[in-house]
């Protein structure tokens, strides 16, 4: 990690700098042009965060467009996030099953501890189980010590793995909040992929102290919280974003090599009745698309090929 003379860390650690101009094309089995993974987030929101834990500075959900922490006693954000666990997640899982699309579900330690039946039902229905930290609003923070961060990751992974009885190889940080150490911590915890970085259109084998970990990029622009809440797109426009993204990535594969799209969806957002038809139509389109490979994110590192075609030439010339 390089710190310059202004004190800035100029580039993200463990990520080689490259671009499509400098690397060999990525290829997918069967000549597919676009690999798509669907990750359903099932986070639990804690209204009263324990002392010493780190909270996000702002997050979505609640009465209006306010993103600061609600005054204590207003339960709009708490209950809106909880909707994802009571109803929204299951609606999206039903939609995915109907379309024949395999999905990963990301759980956190709080959810599997406090929501009876959640872990067991996710274990039964999800193609893959992913760890998602301690709680929706208890996040990693650069003020944590290395030991605190390692304990946060390890305890989250073990809580989710034990509650579901499923192996956990992937990670998604709540609010995508991390520290400069996080990729190394995830690698050292035995994880093989994480989804936080919307940095590319293909998965990336990380380097240096995170070598062995694959960044599986879950796009921000196509994430439901970002599109429908942060940006405030009407749901019809969001559907257009999703479908146009798929079409353009497929077309670009002929120029650039195979593309990857990680769809990051929340039960409390796209699982709402008013939005769920968007998921239904988009997943049906993806499932029927001859150029699309639907893949669980846990299977993506193998497609990168550990130093093979996926990252050939990475960093050259920079």
């Amino acid at each position, binding site marked *: 990690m390089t710190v310059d003379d202004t004190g800035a860390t100029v580039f993200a650690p463990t990520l080689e700098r490259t671009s499509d101009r400098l690397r060999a094309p990525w290829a997918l089995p069967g000549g597919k042009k676009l690999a798509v993974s669907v990750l359903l987030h099932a986070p639990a929101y804690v209204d009263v965060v324990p002392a010493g834990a780190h909270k996000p500075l702002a997050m979505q959900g609640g*009465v209006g467009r306010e993103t600061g922490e609600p005054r204590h006693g207003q339960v709009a954000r708490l209950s*809106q996030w909880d909707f994802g666990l009571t109803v929204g997640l299951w609606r999206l899982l039903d939609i995915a099953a109907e379309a024949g699309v395999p999905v990963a579900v990301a759980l956190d330690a709080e959810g599997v501890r406090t929501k009876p*039946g959640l872990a067991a039902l996710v274990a039964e229905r999800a193609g893959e189980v992913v760890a998602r930290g301690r709680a929706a609003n208890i996040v990693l923070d650069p003020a944590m010590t290395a030991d605190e961060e390692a304990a946060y990751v390890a305890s989250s992974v073990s809580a989710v793995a034990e509650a579901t009885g499923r192996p956990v190889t992937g990670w998604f940080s709540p609010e995508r909040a991390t520290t400069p150490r996080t990729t190394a911590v995830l690698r050292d915890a035995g994880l093989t992929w994480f989804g936080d970085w919307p940095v590319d259109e293909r998965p990336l084998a990380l380097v240096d102290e995170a070598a062995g970990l694959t960044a599986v990029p879950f796009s921000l622009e196509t994430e439901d919280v970002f599109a429908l809440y942060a940006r405030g797109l009407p749901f019809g426009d969001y559907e257009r974003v999703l479908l146009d993204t798929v079409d353009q990535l497929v077309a670009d594969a002929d120029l650039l090599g195979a593309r990857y799209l990680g769809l990051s969806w929340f039960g409390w957002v796209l699982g709402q009745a*008013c939005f*769920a038809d968007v998921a239904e139509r988009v997943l049906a389109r993806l499932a029927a698309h001859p150029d699309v490979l639907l893949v669980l994110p846990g299977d993506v590192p193998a497609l990168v090929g550990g130093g093979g075609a996926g990252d050939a030439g990475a960093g050259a010339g920079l």
Partner: protein
Amino acid sequence: MTSTPLGTDGRLVYAPMPGRPQVTWPDGKLVAVWHAPNVEHYDYVPPGGGSPAGRVAAPDVQHYMHRDYGNRVAFWRMLRAVDAYAIPSTVSLSLTLLRDDPEIRDAMRERDWEVMSHGISNLRPIYDLDEAAESAFLAQSQELTRTHYGASLQGMLGPKISGTDLTADLMVEHGMTYHADWIHDEQPRPLRTRSGGRLVSMPYSYMLNDVPLLHAKHYPPSYFVDMVRAQIGRLVRDAERDGQARVACIATHPFLSGQPHMLRALSEIFELVRGDDRLWVTRAGDIADHYLEHHYDAQLAHARALAGEGPR
């Protein structure tokens, strides 16, 4: 009584929708729809002064007059649409209006609207009330409603969506049966209370709601219609598929939905609600009563079994 306060994190009784005992509505209806007009009073200068909209110091006449217009003019325009489609309504009411605006009170009475508490006045949130003060607030709320409306309050949506750690406990101790601040489900759900008294959440909406949608997030009126159509359409299809009857709330405010440019959208919403005979268009209290009588015990027992707890 439990020794540890339930607070906000301890209220909800979790159970995933799949596997719950089935909820059904009268006559085989699939989705209960309740219209919640928020008829609110905003003090000209609220207690303690301040800035009602974070814009200028009180009196903020832009804010005050916009909202008072809602009660003076726009309420009556809205009522024409409500009457045209005979929409049962559950008014989320600043209760001082029962005393201070007898015309509105009588119009609601004539239409058999249910009065749901939305506090005394909408610039008087209850966040900072201690137990005695909150209890007195609820007693005053019931008294205002009994005296001026001849009915008891069954439920509340906190004024300015405010509450305390004890709100649910005190509501049930003041005779209420539902709390509309919780939006975690598409069915009423049991809420834990310190006395064990039966209180349920009533699915309100910040999505099908003119203030967040139009006022805070700047969508056009036609999007309100699109959202209602999408929400109810999906709920009906899902209820047909899994047999779980559901709830949709359409929340309005006269100062927005009673504006001249809103009447077309509001009429379209009511028309689509009235055009589907699979919907039970009713009042929140009726939904709560039905749920408490027919489904509360089974759903609570199911959730407790999931949690590995015995019967209470």
